[in-house]
Each structure stands twice: as structure tokens, then as C-alpha cells.
């Protein structure tokens, strides 16, 4: 019997010693619950958040809305690259709609996580003054980025904001905390467009409070000026012309960001991403740190000189808006070249994003750092706000003239008013912002449609009423992107946009 006792003790000991801990964690990732505990953690998430800006302001995020509009013609044999957007055959499973939806919300969720983390850290009251400042800045930046991403979502997935209809149209779901779940009953529905914009304004107000870093030319980070610039852009969208004018004017008047006036500096600024008029530019440091390539569809897929094979070329009417002899924009951004594929002939191509030599080693990859805000846009916002306020045609004219004086050699100031002023303003937006992804939003805001015109060389562009001959009515529901099918299937609370079958 002594044996048994001994044996039982040994057995009990064996079990006790052999039990393993069941809490195991990977060595290449951090448990989410423990990932936000210090200022350094906040900073890592801040870098992660900023990293996202390299992607969502480049490539298809920028050119797809332009392809939807009247800036480009597809050439023959264009291979239907992003063709569904161009000829309005978009379905709910279109790739870019899905990329934008999931991509932008992914940044929002990281922003939410950082906002919660910074708030918790600040509430704990354990930080010294310097750290408090830093964490507050991160909080403000996260609020800003959340606002900007919601604004981008509205641009892609919502109708134009009009104060009269903003309570009727749908916005995008507003999610303010990071709480991912597979429980579809907990997924949010779409609030009104008004509610979505209210959230954007609220976040911008927080950003204004905590991002007090003074602006600087080409800043890689969000500054007080960046917040102001987005406030101006959003205010114009919301028909809040007083604010739009006020904010745009304050940036112009600061004198910090100078419009470039000579063609060499201008072309160099676009190639090497060092424009003196940039308020915020997402930073990329080298060939292994890139955003999306821009111009694959616009002019060249091989990157080699003499091998241009554009899928899309600028429409003639837009090119003809420029004073081709004197406008530094035309001279910097467009180039007439002989093409052998996919068509043979001479075409004028957009060469606005030639690729920054710092970002490739041998052959260009057509990656440039996105200039998310430039001071010239503020001139255009100020002018448009002034026109819409009424009785300020002279103010508006002045902003247009100031911009043109910088861009066009020998420009003589001209005062515009009434409808002529509106036409001038709208044309100037095309000239100044060509290829920067604003055109579709402008058409929505101005409630106008378009008809694609004859091509630069009608022999070389895709003919037919779905292509070069396409006509779209004002406020077409198809200007608005579809909610992607993956979202529709996953989220029973989701409402599809008009004009798309719900599958």
C-alpha cells in the first residue's frame, strides 16, 4: 500500500508539471489588446495611418473618377483597362469600388483605434507635458484622417451634398470605434448624407483644436494649414461659402505657398515632387516605399522612352482650353508623341506623373508623391465661393486672374462677371486640376452632365456611343459608385445606391 501512495503522489506531480500554458502569442505581431500602451505605440500607429495616405491618393483612386468624366478618350484596342468606368458598365463587383470601400474603411478603423488609444492614454493622466502634446497631436491627426477618409467615401459613394437634400440622400455608415465582429446584425446602416458630413465637420473641429503645427511647403504631415485646406474643400462642397472663402483666403494670404510661374520649376516640381505650392504631400522615400503608379493607363506601360502605349488620352476640348504657347501647365503636363501601340499615330498624352527618379532605379514606375492639397486649389475654391455668395464677382475674378497670371506668361487681367465668370471658373478648374481626380466631383457639385467630344484624332479613339460618343445627363445616379457586392452580402443593413442591381 505504501507503493500506491508513492505512485499517486508521483502521478499527481507529473500532471501538474506537464500542463502547458495555453496563452500563446506570435513573435511577429502584437496582440491587439496590448498594442496601444505607450507614446511609442501611438507613434507606430500614426506612421501606419500616414502610410495609408500613399495609397488612397494615388493611382486608380485618382484616375478612375476622371475616366468616368469627360477628360479622356480611350484609344482603340485599349484592352478595356478600367473600361467599365469609362463606358458605364460598372457592376457591384467592380474591383475599384471594392478597393476604395475596404481601403478607406481600413484606414478609418486604424484611425478609430488610434483615437481610442490616445484618449485612453490622455485620460490616464500619466504623461508629462511634452508627451501630452505629442499624443494630442496624434489624436488630432487621427481625427483629421478619419474626416478626410469619410469625405473621400462620400465623394465616391454618395450623391452631391446639397443642404436642401442632404437629409434625404444617404451617406456612408459612420463607425467611430474599433470593434470588428462577424455578427452581421451589428453592422451599421447608412445614415443621411447630412449625418455623415456632420461627423466630418466634428472631426475637423477636433483636428483644428489639436493639430497646431504650423504649415510648411510640401509637408509630409498634417499641419494646421492642411486642416484649413480640407475645411475649405468640404465647406465648398457643403455650400458653406463663407467658410470656404474664409479658409481658402487665409491660406492664400499667409503667403507661405507660392504659385510657380516658370515652366522649368513647374515641370521639375511635378517630376521631383518639390513644388513650392504644395500644402500636403504624402511622403515616399524610395523604390521600396511606394504608393500606386499613376499613369499606366494614361501613357506608358513599359516605362521605356519611345514605347508609349496609352490606353487613354486627353480629350481635345480640354487640351484646347489651354493657351498652348504660354501656359506652363500645358507645357509641363502634356506632350505630343508618336505612338505605335495599341494604335499607330500621333497623340498628345498626359505626362503629369512621369515618375520621381528617387522612387525608381532604372526604368520609371510612374509613381509620384501625391500633392493632396496645393495652394492653387485654394484660389479656385475662393473664387467659386465668392461667386456663389453673390455680389463678389470682382473678388472671384481676382483669384482667377491671380492664378492665371502665375501660370500663363503675359497674362492680362480681365474682370469677369455673371455667367461668363462661372464659365471661366469652371474652365480654370479643368486647366489647373487636370488629372487630379476632381472632375467627377465638380460635375456633381455643378449639377451638369457631359458629352464626350471628338477626339484629338478621331481615327485613333474608340468610337461609339458608349465610348467617344458617350453622353451623360446631369446628376446621373451612375456618377455615384456602387456599394461593392461583398459589402452588400455581408451587411444586411446596407442600402445599395440607385442605378445598381442589388447583387
Amino acid at each position: 500500500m505504501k507503493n500506491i501512495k508513492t505512485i499517486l503522489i508521483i502521478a499527481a506531480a507529473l500532471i501538474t508539471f506537464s500542463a502547458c500554458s495555453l496563452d500563446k502569442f506570435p513573435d511577429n505581431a502584437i496582440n491587439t489588446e496590448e498594442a496601444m500602451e505607450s507614446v511609442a505605440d501611438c507613434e507606430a500607429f500614426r506612421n501606419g495611418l500616414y502610410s495609408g495616405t500613399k495609397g488612397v491618393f494615388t493611382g486608380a483612386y485618382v484616375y478612375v473618377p476622371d475616366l468616368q468624366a469627360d477628360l479622356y478618350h480611350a484609344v482603340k484596342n485599349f484592352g478595356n483597362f478600367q473600361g467599365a468606368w469609362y463606358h458605364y458598365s460598372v457592376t457591384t463587383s467592380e474591383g475599384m469600388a471594392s478597393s476604395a470601400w475596404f481601403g478607406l474603411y481600413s484606414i478609418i478603423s486604424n484611425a478609430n483605434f488610434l483615437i481610442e488609444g490616445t484618449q485612453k492614454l490622455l485620460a490616464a493622466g500619466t504623461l508629462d507635458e511634452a508627451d501630452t502634446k505629442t499624443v494630442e497631436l496624434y489624436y488630432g491627426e487621427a481625427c483629421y484622417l478619419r474626416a478626410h477618409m469619410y469625405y473621400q467615401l462620400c465623394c465616391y459613394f454618395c450623391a452631391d451634398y446639397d443642404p436642401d437634400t442632404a437629409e434625404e440622400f444617404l451617406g456612408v455608415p459612420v463607425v467611430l470605434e474599433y470593434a470588428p465582429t462577424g455578427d452581421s446584425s451589428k453592422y451599421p446602416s447608412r445614415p443621411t448624407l447630412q449625418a455623415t458630413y456632420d461627423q466630418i465637420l466634428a472631426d475637423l473641429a477636433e483636428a483644428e483644436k489639436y493639430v497646431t503645427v504650423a504649415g510648411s511647403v510640401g509637408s509630409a504631415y498634417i499641419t494646421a494649414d492642411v486642416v484649413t485646406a480640407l475645411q475649405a474643400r468640404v465647406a465648398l462642397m457643403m455650400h458653406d461659402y463663407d467658410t470656404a472663402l474664409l479658409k481658402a483666403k487665409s491660406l492664400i494670404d499667409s503667403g507661405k505657398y507660392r504659385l510657380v510661374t516658370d515652366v522649368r520649376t513647374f515641370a521639375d516640381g511635378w517630376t521631383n515632387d518639390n513644388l513650392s505650392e504644395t500644402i500636403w504631400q504624402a511622403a515616399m522615400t524610395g523604390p521600396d516605399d511606394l504608393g500606386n503608379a499613376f499613369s499606366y493607363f494614361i501613357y506608358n506601360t513599359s516605362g521605356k522612352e519611345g514605347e508609349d502605349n496609352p490606353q487613354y488620352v486627353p480629350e481635345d476640348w480640354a487640351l484646347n482650353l489651354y493657351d498652348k504657347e504660354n501656359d506652363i501647365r500645358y507645357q509641363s503636363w502634356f506632350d505630343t508623341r508618336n505612338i505605335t501601340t495599341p494604335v499607330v499615330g500621333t497623340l498628345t498624352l498626359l505626362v503629369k506623373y512621369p515618375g520621381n527618379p528617387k522612387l525608381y532605379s532604372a526604368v520609371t514606375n510612374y509613381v509620384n508623391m501625391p500633392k493632396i492639397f496645393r495652394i492653387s486649389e485654394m484660389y479656385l475654391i475662393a473664387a467659386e465661393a465668392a461667386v456663389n455668395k453673390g455680389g463678389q464677382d470682382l473678388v472671384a475674378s481676382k483669384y482667377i486672374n491671380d492664378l492665371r497670371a502665375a501660370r500663363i506668361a503675359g497674362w492680362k487681367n480681365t474682370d469677369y462677371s455673371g455667367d461668363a465668370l462661372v464659365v471661366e471658373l469652371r474652365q480654370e478648374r479643368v486647366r489647373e486640376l487636370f488629372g487630379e481626380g476632381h472632375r467627377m466631383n465638380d460635375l456633381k457639385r455643378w449639377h451638369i452632365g457631359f458629352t464626350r467630344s471628338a477626339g484629338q484624332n478621331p481615327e485613333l479613339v474608340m468610337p461609339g456611343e458608349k465610348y467617344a460618343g458617350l453622353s451623360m445627363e446631369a446628376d446621373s445616379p451612375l456618377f455615384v459608385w456602387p456599394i461593392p457586392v461583398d459589402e452588400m452580402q455581408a451587411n444586411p443593413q446596407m442600402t445599395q445606391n440607385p442605378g445598381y442591381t442589388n447583387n
Partner: protein
Amino acid sequence: MKRIRLFFTVMVMLLASVSAFAQNITVSGVVTDSNDQPVIGATVMVAGTQTGTSTDADGQFKVNAPSNGQLIVSIIGYATQTVDINGKTFIAIQVEEDAEFLDATIVVGYGTGQKIGNIVGSVTTVSSDEIASRPSANIGDALQGKVAGLQIFNTSGEPQSSVSVRLRGESSLNLSTAPLYILDGVPVSSDVFNSISPQDIENISVLKDASSTAIYGSRAANGVIFISTKKGKQGEKPSVSFRGQYGISMLTNYNMEMMTSEQLFQFEEICVPELKFDPAYQAEKAFVLGNGINFDWTDYLFNDAAPVLQADASIRGASEKTNYYVSLGYYSEKGTAKANSGVDRFTFRTNLDTQVTDWLKFGANVALTYSGYQTIVTGWYTQSPILQAVTALPYKSPYEIIYNPDGTISWGDPYEVYPWDNMIDLNKYYEKNTNMKENLSLMGQTYFLLTPMKGLTIRAQQAIDGYDYKGEAINYPSYEPFSARGRNSQAFERYYQLSSTNTVEYKTDINKKHFFAALAGHESFIRHTESFNATGTGLTDDRIVNFGSTTDISDWAGGTSECAFNSFFGNVNYNYADRYFLDASVRTDGSSLFGKNHRYATFYSFGGMWKAKSEPFLQNVNWVNDLSLSVSYGTTGNAGLNSWYESLGLVGAGPKYNGKAGWALAQVPNADLTWETVATLNVRLHTRLWDRLTLGLEFYDRLSSDLLMELPFSGTTGHASGMGNIAEMKNTGVDLDVELDLVHTKNVYWGVRANVNYNKNKITKLYQGLDELAFPDYSLKYQVGMPSSLVYTQVRAGVDPQDGAPMWYDLNGNLTKTYSDDIMQFCGMDTNAPWSGGFSTNFSWKGLGINADFSWIGERWIFINERYYTMNPQNLLFSSNFETKMLDIWQKPGDVTDIPKYGTQFYHDTARFSNASFMRLKNLSVSYAFPSEMIQKSKVLSGLKIYLTARNLWTVTDFAGYDPEVGASNATSGMYPNSRQFVFGAELVF
């Protein structure tokens, strides 16, 4: 001599006097086993003394002992007995077999095992002689076609390759469908099939139903493969045996019928009629045909006599207290591809058990395996030999043509790069681009067995299963066609699993009528894996290619993962009069793999068996030798996740900004994540009639629930998807085993065996009430009520005879020429075979034995990716060879054919699938064992056997790809083709 005799006389007298003093008596007796057979060599000791003796050939003994003393009888294989003398001079002692050593006993699960006929669960056992001599590095290959419901595919002919194993259909959509492997009671990884020497295996049991597997809990959803290695046997003469075998490998039946030079010219002229008037083309054609150039690329790239050899030696036996089995083995096989591929493997094993005292026993099994193997690129790459063999142009030759002055030609050296298409010569490529791998694996276990009282067994087992792997890929600097030359890539991997298993078991009976056994146990294990790899570049000379001589490092990576399980389990079984059996098991598993809220789960099973033959009313029915019916129900789990951290919310490093490192949310936390559960109902009928016919029929119903899937999330969560336990699926089927002894006389035996499985799979539930979920890119759709592996694609409806355009069926069954995702549909093709089985026949006459094993599967469809080359002239005319059936290409209105006109886009549709049903003569062997009278004359040998074995000798299939077995999931695409072996061997026993 005299002195010695004197000395002994004195000694005997002294002893006698001592005995007299202690009132000793002479006790004689006999030791028998439970069958009343004498037990030879048992030790009979007088308790408390060093006095003792052994039983003789009749089991008898004689010993002097105190009349009031005790005798202790012990022998390995039997429970030790203590008997009171009580003055008796003759004692008959019956010893009971120690269950650990019973021949007819197998251990499936924990504890000391049960008699095979008493197991309630569904267990099929394959014995060693069906495995040992197979010319394959992977013992799984030998199981093919042996067990009803066990589908095994040798998905590659690479000598060191794994097999795909699936039991009773696919029980999971995304998790592992591989069974749990247990080696001598220790859970091990599936690598065991490659690292164990076949000669070391005593038997392999396949555990199919819940009653036999629930005790393994969360890892047993796909069944359990229980491997027992050999042990020394008490009562058997120690034996030393040697086995040597040598043979050759070649490709198996090669089913792709490709064009000859002449046919290919003809075909090219059909596609491009202008070629008939193209002088350059015609000159080339005349040259090729005139010189009889019709190059056999398969022969160029593959060997038809690659050597395979095997040599084993083992010693097996037992002494009084200890039994042992020691072996070493060598296996070497060259791949059929001339490109350098092959394996050299050394195996060492020692199995040892010893009875220390009457209550303590311990043992150790230790096996070491070293494998060095060379692999080549397979799959969808230009370096894949089979792809080149299939697609290379027969009117071109890798050898440079030398034009002789007399107008004839002769052949020079092979090109390094073929000038006509810039493809590389693979034989040369693999000389200068090597990929050597080395694996050292260790499987070791020790156990202590305590029997403090009769019927009570306490067992503590500790084990390690691990490997250390190194891979070295070298791209020699002198190999110019490869831009990344001068590289040395190193990969290191280390894995181990430490486990500890402790059980307490108690067996008893009441009046030999009610038999009870109860077992409780605990098991813990931890798995650890780590890896590191890096690529060095900048080597400049073929003579210095070591890693240290590289100048730059790129592509480095490394990491560690760990997971752990803690489990408690129990089993009770009861049997009344050998007639009624009940069995119940329960296991609670805790695992680090799963979410905080669902870390522990419990699995259970109940089973019952009625052994009708034991009933009085059947005992005298002579033509029924055996009849039993059993039913079991229970649950098991599947924890075969790809990552060990799926339940955790994770933040990953990676995104950087402005030169600074950043983090981002990477994985959704799911504290509820848990294992998949499979609930199995199993009904089994087993009978043997007329002492000739054995029939086993089983019906099963396996419901898999909580299936893990990547669940699409609302983008508003910040994630596109997350893992969730969300679907249900069912496998229902029948296993049938038949064994028939056709002739069974003293000298002649001829018998046949066959097994068949039919399995029906269907999805019964998807998440959120969805009826279907399509993955068009993968030709897959999950639909409630339909099998999970049905091909979902466009259905080809032939070719319009009028214009040669391909046609498809739309969803209403009408013909359409518009190819789109909208006409994707189920087309009745399943990539998992619902039918499978095997049959074998054994014939023996005196020492001569003939054995043939067939295995087959039915109604499996495979996507032939090679057809992108072999049936796609629109993209690849002049750069690829084509299947001869392409000569039927549509040419003019009115042509009725399945091949669309030249210039038609190549579509992904049912025309790229082929029925991969096959029947394969897996093994044919002829052996001769020399008669023992003859052998024994040698005084040295006690057995000699020679044999000839052919593997994969004959295959019947309609499959249009090169091999129906190659194709891991549902496609063949440039995989290493299977091989056929002819082997001669001899086995010597001393």
C-alpha cells in the same frame, strides 16, 4: 575432477543441512496460461530468497521452499503471480497474459488494449507484411486501397514526397483533412510516413468511428492512424534478419498522346494554310522529315531505369525480463527525372521494455531518421520537367545540329538555351541549380508502468517528436541563362513536440461474467516551430559556392510559433459474458489555438456491441463463425488551423511612413473561435461464415459543424473578412469489406479480399442563412444540399459545325456562344471521388506466394492545367506541341468536332476537366520462402525468402492527363509524375 566433485558434494550437504534447519520441502508444479498451455521459461522464485528455478519445456518446475512460504512466478508477457505454498508439494499455477503483450490485443486509444474482437469501435488493421517490402519512401503508399473509406493519393512521383490521406470524405472546408497520426501512443506529425522505416512497423490501425476516436478529442475529426512498431516477443527465439532489395523506377503509364513531328507540321498547316506555300517553312519541314527528326522529349528528360534500393537489418528477441527490437535501415531512390532528384535515408530504431520489479516496468522507443534529398521544381514553371516533356516541339532537338559536308547531319552537344524559343535545357539547368535538403528527425518516448495491485495500471509516458531541417539551394555562377545566378539560399527549420501522457486504468471482473475497465488520463503537449532563411548573392566561381562567400544578403525571414494543448480524458467499458459490450469515452481539450471564450471543449462517444455468436443459440451453429453488430455515436474535433494564432486580434508591423516603422491592425480578434466538430454515427455488422467468408459492412453519417471559414465582413469594421465557425456539412457513406478464402488446404491457400467505400458529401448550412456562396475564380460554389467539391464552371456544348465557334449551355440548357460568368453552373463533376476501394488476391503453395493489390477510385474529375499548352494553338502555335486530338480541329462548315477553329480564344470550361477515375495494380509480388528443412541444414539460417515486386505495374484509366493520381487537390499542372518500380529482394533470418 575429483576435487570438483568433492567440492560439490560438500556444498550439497551444506545446503541440505541448511534446508533441513528451515523445514524446507520440495515443491513441484506446472505453470500454464489461460488456455491451459504450458508456459516455458517462467521464473519461479521463493519469496524473500534468492532461490529459484525456471520452468521446463512442459511448463514444469521443482524447487525447495519453506512449507509456509510463497512462490512468485514471473515471465514477460504475463502478470506476475504470487502463490502460497501452504505445505503443498504440487502446485498448478495459471498465469494471465499481460495485455501489453497479447498477440490478439491491440491498443487503440490509451491503456493496455483490448482483444481485437472486443473492440466496439470501427478499426481496420493492416499488418507489417503488407507494408515492409514496398519500394516507396512513403509507407502511406502501401496503405492505398487497403482500408475501406481511406483514400490515399500519391500526388507526386518525387521520391521524398508526402501522400494525401483522407478518411470517409472531406470533413472540413478549410481546415486540415489529414487524420491524426499516433505512433506507439504518441501523437506525431504526418511526416512519420516519410521518416519511419517500413520494416519497423508491426501494424497500422485505422480508427474510423467516434467510439474509437473520441478519446483523441479535438484532433481526431479525420480519423486516427495508429502505428505500432515491433517489439521483441517473449517465448520467441531471438532472431536476426537482413533484407536487401534492389530495383529500378520509370514513369507510370503515360496517358498524354502528343503529336509527332509529322502530325505537328500537318496541324500547323491546318491552322495557317498559307504555310503550305511558305518556302522557308516547307524547307524546314522537308529537312526535319527527311532526317527523321521526331524527338522524344520525355525520354530525354526522364530516366527509365532509375535505381531504388533498400537494405535493413534488425534484431528482435527477449531475455527473461527484457525484450528488445533494434533495427537499422537504408533506403535510396533516384527520381525518374534526369534532373537531380532523389532521397537517401538512414533509419535507426531501438524499442526496449523491461520488467524491473513485479510492480514496475519501463520501456523506451527511440527512432532517428536522417534523410538527404534533392528536389526539383514542379508545377506551373518552366523548370518543371514534365511540362517541358509535354510541350516541347518534337521537330526540334536539344542537341545542336551539325551539318556534315556530305549533306547528312549529326548531333552535337545539347544547347544550354534553345535558340528557337529561349527555353532552358533542364538537364543542364539542374546540374547548375541544385536544391539539397536534409532532415534529421527524432521520435523518442519513454514510459513507466506501475501495477501496484492486480488490475490497476498506472502509466506515465513522455515523448518527443521533432526534426531539424536544412535546405540549401545553389544557383551556380557559371549558369548564364539564369539572371539570379551566383546565389546560395539557406533555410533552417526546427520543430519539436513534447508530450506527456499519464493514465490510470483499472480492470476487473465479477465472476468472470461482468468485465469492467475504466481509464482516466491526462495529456499535455507543446509544439514549437522556428525557421530562418536567407539568400546570399554575389558568388562568382563555381568552386566557391558556400553561403559564407556570398557578398550580399537578401530575402531574409525568420520566426517562431508555439501552441499547446492540455487534455483530460476517460473511458469506461463493460462487457457481459462476452456477449454485450458497452463503451463510453470523454475527452476535454484545452488549446491555445482557440479563442479565450472557447478554449476548452468536450468530446464524447457511446458505443455498444452485440456479439451474437456468443449467444447460446448460435454457439452450436457451425457455419456461423462470427457475428456481431455494433453501433456508436460521438463527437470529435478538428483543430487543424493554418495558423496557430487565428483567434487573436493582431497588430502587425509593416506599413512605414517617411522612413519610420509603423503598425496597422492586421487580424480580427475572435474570442469565440473554436474547433470544428464532427459528430459520427456508425453502424457495423461483422460476420464470418463457413470459415471462409468474412463480411464487414458499415454505415456512417458524419455531420461536421462549426466549420471554419473566412467570413466576409462588412468593410465598415475595417476588415474584409475574419475567421468564423459558420458552416455545416455532412458525409454519409458505406464501407464494405469482403474476404473470401477460395482454397484453404494444408499446402495451398488462395484468397481474395476487397473493400469498397461510397461517400456522399453535402453542405447542409452556410452562414447567415445563405443558400450559396460562389468563388468563380476557383471554379467553386458552396451550395446547401450539394457536395462541397463540385466543379462550378461553364459547360462546353461542343462546337458549332457552321462556324467552328465553341458553344456552352446557359442556365436554361440552351446553347450560347457568349462566354461569361453568368453561365457558370454545376456540371456534375466532383473533384473528390465518391467511390473508392481496393482488392487483392493472395495465392500460396508451399513456399511460393503470389500477391496482387489493386486500388481504384471512381468519378473524380481533375482540371488538366497542361491543356493550356496542349490544346491552345491560338496562343501557342509554333511554340508548343499539342495533343493528337487537336488534329480534329474545325476547318470548314459542316465539320462536326469538339475542337473549335484556330483563332478561338482558349476558355476555362468543362473541356479542361477529365475523369480521373482509375484502377491501379499497386503491387504485384511473387515470393518464395525456402523450405525450413532445407534452410536448417545450413545450421546458420533459419529462414530465407526471395521476392520480386512491381509497383504501379498496370493502370486502367480514361484520364487524359499524364497520371490520374497526380493532382493534389483538383488539378494537375506540371507535377512530378508517378513512377513504376521493379524490385528484387531477399530476406534472411538467422
